[in-house]
């Protein structure tokens, strides 16, 4: 059966969070735990942006897909690096919802896009979080 939902949800913003300034401690804690080089005392390693948690991780009006959800993957496009003192803003939208049929049956994919910018409105990262429902 074809996936049926109100497509007006695609592109809709469901969260906008402004975070407290990035601290040296947060960068050092993340770098030490991830083992990811490329950082120093004032610059975060690239994947630091995944630790940003907005107020909502899913839209309130998300269609009921009636299935169990799994984290299927993530794509990150990196802009300017995160530095100590940056005030980051994350804006999340529903980027896409689509259905695929594989060997094990049908699956629905929900792609949530989060665009992260700094206080100068430079783009820091575009993060596509892919959730699979089956």
């Amino acid at each position, binding site marked *: 059966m074809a996936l049926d939902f109100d497509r007006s949800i695609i592109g809709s913003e469901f969260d906008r969070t402004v975070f407290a300034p990035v601290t040296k401690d947060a960068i050092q804690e993340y770098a*030490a*735990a*991830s083992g990811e080089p490329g950082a120093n005392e004032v610059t975060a390693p690239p994947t630091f942006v995944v630790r940003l*948690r907005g107020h909502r991780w899913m839209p309130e009006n998300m269609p009921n897909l009636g299935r169990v959800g799994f984290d*299927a993957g*993530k794509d990150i496009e*990196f802009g300017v690096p995160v530095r100590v003192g940056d005030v980051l803003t994350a804006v999340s939208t529903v980027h896409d919802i689509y259905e695929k049929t594989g060997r094990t049956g049908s699956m629905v994919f929900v792609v949530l896009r989060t665009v992260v910018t700094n206080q100068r409105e430079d783009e820091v990262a575009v993060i596509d979080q892919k959730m699979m429902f089956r």
Partner: protein
Amino acid sequence: MATRFADVDVGHDLHTLTLTLSGDEVKRYAVAARMPGGRFMSDDDARKEGLPGQIVPGNLSLALFSRLIAESLPDATLKKLSATFRGLVHPGQPLKIHGVVTEKHCTDEGDRIECDLVLESQEGDRLVTGTATVQFPARR
């Protein structure tokens, strides 16, 4: 170690990382990355969520891919990173993370390469696959 665009050809193998994450290391990452969920904290908490035991967050697999790129191509900058989570990764499981250069491009923005990345178990199961786009400094 490849440090220049000219040193890297299609088919060039990146370094191979071999490691086994401990449960404490996974928990430490989950806390640092602000990842809620007992599944990342301990076997007991993960079982309460219906999982066989503590699991490694997908974001840590992304960080391992980033580490592989940084150690293999230290002068290059990571521009894009993608990962597909194909299976559960557990602490205590020996892991091999490796990659290969698949494309080279000279673009207006700089010299770039594309890489395929794999995180696999000792048994050769491809638990996480990914791609990376990496940019080299402008040639002088």
